[in-house]
């Protein structure tokens, strides 16, 4: 994963969940979230926007 301007290896996938919501609106949400444990022991959450078929990093706070 490239995060904070550097590449880090993914140690393991520590979680996965999906969200399908707001399908009745003009901005439907269909995402697959993946929690990644990185080599520096940080957990990074990314998600796949299944409508746009694009990956994003989930930022909290």
């Amino acid at each position, binding site marked *: 994963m490239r995060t904070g301007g550097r590449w880090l290896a993914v140690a393991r996938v*520590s*979680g*996965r*969940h*999906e*969200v*399908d*919501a707001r*399908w*009745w609106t*003009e901005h439907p949400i269909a995402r*697959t*979230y993946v929690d990644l444990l990185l080599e520096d022991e940080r957990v990074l959450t990314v998600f796949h926007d299944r409508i746009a078929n694009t990956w994003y990093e989930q930022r909290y706070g």
Partner: protein
Amino acid sequence: MAEYAELHCHSAYSFREGASTPLELVLTARALGYRALALTDHDGLAGAMEFAQTAREWELPAIIGAELTLLRRGARPCAPTDAEATTPDRCFASLSMADRDGDAAAICHMTLLAETQRGYANLSRLISQARLASPRDEPQLPLDALEGHTEGLIALSGCPQGAVPQAIAGHDPDGARRAAERLLALFGRGRFFVELQRNLVHGDEARNRGLVELARQLDLPLVATNNVHYHERARHRLQDVLVAVRHRTSLDASEHLRRPNANYYLKSPDEMAALFAELPEALANTVAIAERCRFDLTRDLNYRFPDYQAPDGTPADEYLEQVCLQGMRELYGLALPPNAHDRLQQELALIRQAGHAGFFLRLWELMRYAHEHDMPARGRGSSVGSLVCYLLGLSGIDPIKYDLFVGRFLNEARQSEDVPDIDIDFARDARDRMFQHVFATYGTEHAALVANVIQYRYPQAIRDVGKALGLPEGDVDRLAKRMRGRFAGTLEQEMRTLPEFHGRTQAPVWREFRRLVEELRGKPRHLGQHSGGVMLSSTPIVEQVPVQPSAMAGRYICQWDKDSVADAGIIKLDLLGYPSLGHLDRALKLIEQQHGRRIDPVHIPLDDPKVYEMVQWGDILGIVQIQSRAQLQTIRRLTIRSIDDLVIQVALIRPGPIQGGAVNPYIARSQGIEPVTYDHPCLEPVLAETKGVIVFQEQVLEAAIAVAGFTPGQAESLRRAMSRKRSRDEMEKLREAFLAGAHRHAGADEATAQRIYEKILAFAEFGFPKAHAAAMAETAAKLAWVKCYYKLIFYTSWLNEWPFGFYSPGVIVNEARRNGVEVLGVDVNRSRAECRIEGDAVRLGFRYVKGIGEAWLERLDAEAAHGPYSSLWDFWRRTRIPREPIEHLIRLGAFAFTGLHERELIWQLDLFYQPLGAQLPLALPHDAEMVALAEMSGGERVREDVVLTEGGITTRGHIMDLVSGALHEGVTPSHVVEGLAEGTKVTVAGFVAVRQAPGTAKGFVFHTLEDRFGLVNIITNPRLVQRYKELVAEAGALVVHGHIERQERAVNVITERMEPLRLDASARVPAARTHTFG
């Protein structure tokens, strides 16, 4: 491929929760290669039989289970309350559902599966217990109630709402352990599994880790499930909508209540194996459990009909014969038909063979009670064809006299496959008393009402989906109303015709709306009550099927509809309300009261030429079964001279003969216009009575026997297949057998055999058995006799028995007048709650005054015994009924005796009226305070009559007075229309008495317009129905321009154009004055 059985699955019978039908689930599970599928609807088994039958049909092993809502130990159950804004949340979210006492974790879920027959009985009993002790739609069972009822059940720890998973998610490992140990103690080792679900929801992983750890600690087996709520992923949208609907909110406002994603579908075994790759035993255990659950609901139900203990220990078979022979002596005396004994022995042999003697004797006992307690009743349906039923007093119709076929009711195939249906009609009040008697005799442990599954229709589906999507209420309401009747096209068509949807119909949200509405339509919404079905069992009913409270105190309703009850082989009695029996009974009592002549309905002559002359003339309003527009049309073209003619007439105008193309050939052949022919010579003995066409249901059986060489049992299977919702495949299998049989047995070529089979199919179930038609025709003939000889009594009793039938009271009263019977308005000193005979007239009863409820009717009758009222004040002082009904009575002229007119009386009422509970004012001389007020005009009084009486009765004028301004010399009155020639151009005008759009009419709509002189029939073709849709569907009064269509004495006006008939200023007609039906 991995092996998997889904053990946690909800169907649409988890009402407003599950989004797929049992069939959709079974077909998908089968396609995915499941080893088995369990149905685990919430707190119910309403869909269990349908599921089990469907699964059997598709050769998928089925497991019956349920997801129970439990109250943990110490938590108090909710007291039953009215339905509340929110119901218990299920499976996901709504952890805040909580109990009302603040114990957030009081409610928990658990998945139970029936391993054995005992397990199924326990499950059914537990659900019943929860349903009976909880608020409606909020079943909850105290956890401790499981004690002693876990034998034969396999328990899974449940969804995230389970007691164990909740504790783990709440970081309470000790609580989780305690909960697991408690369940282990209840169910025993090997019958309690820790359930893991991985629906890709945030939190699944942590919860499952905790569950696995706990299972290892306690040495408990694991099992994987997917908490299925729909058969395919795409259906998650409907499931979201249903959750919002159940919580009476919108999708926007229900995020915390809905499932977060679309992963609750039937996943392939490989997908499940991938999800639980690190726990293969969890997947293997699904198959192991499925192999253990051998209970088959289609086969293993422990049902027994209550047996009959005959006096002195006489065997039931022998006693039944004794009772029948006694009945034979009483009913036939010396005039015993020659074949009666043989026929009786033949029927008794079939009953003996099937072991149903006790059943017949039980019914005999019930009907004896009915006869001894003056309850008007008689049989209906195919049982009327049975001599045994006649001799036991179950039918009241002599099958030998009418040459009725018994094979539809009793035959060798039915003995092993199912039990005979016995349907009995009762007068309305008598039916209520009979229900009380049945429940008093059998108790709720052994008797239950049969359910009716209420399915989503367009209007409700539109309202529910519209609300969930947050669509404008006004738009949704208009659309729902638009889709209410048979006049509607498709949802999209209707949207296009409404101006407010212009340019919006293809907007994404409205497209989604339409798709969801179509998906929802036809899905079960809730359980209602069957119109008259009651099941009886010698084994406790709660162990056959769960029961829940019914609307009637002291009676329970089972969770199965009539199809499921029949599939279970459970005997169902249909105790139906038939108001015409009440009409006849009231009339006979009035004849005795007025003329001192006691008439036994059995002895009313059925061969009186004067009666048939009246019927033939078309004076048939109020005569059950023959009073419709369509009946009148055929009666006028046929010759009705006997009860046998009437039996055919009753059966002819039914969807079966209409769709089977029998009506016009029958009429033409009766008139000698076309020769009587048969599709095959072997049909002649079967169809000679009905001139070569199929009119009666028995003829379907007899035709199958004659043409294809079917046994009576095979023929009955064909009839049953036609009557079932789930039988298309069976019908096709039977087609093959029919074609082969026709070739072999009758030498019929394929084209002929196909033609006959198609006619049988078109007839389907929608025709009467001759036995049923005979029962109906007898009642019709008896009512016709009353109408012929006692018109005044006929109308009085009709008005007192109403509501029923085709016509509103306003139309009935006008018809009475045309027949020379005057109907007088309400008068507080002369009227009673019901209509009464006053000299040569009918005095209208208070029951027809809007706003006077049942309690006030009783009060008025009681007070009438104390003598006449001397004034308005005296009336108010003595009755203390509320102001609104008093004002209605004034405006209807009920105080005319005072010499004051309506406005003066209302002025006076204002001077002294005080609501109930206020101090009574002194009786002051109100006359001194009067002011000069203008009296109402005749037209105003008619307006008041129409608006303030039930069904728009006018006694102080005619309803046509309201449209006098709109009529002109170009409008032809109805009695003149009768005499016009074919093709004559005509304009007619009147109030819509009946509006009918039958499914068999291919889009044609029929109106019956009423004017001052009578009724006139209007036929509007589908093109004009679309052009004048609003008028056709809603107008209370119409002007129709068209031309005459005449077939002998049957006359119709064929619409060319129409317009509303304008009412005079401020007049309005309540919609209830028109009877609209499909």
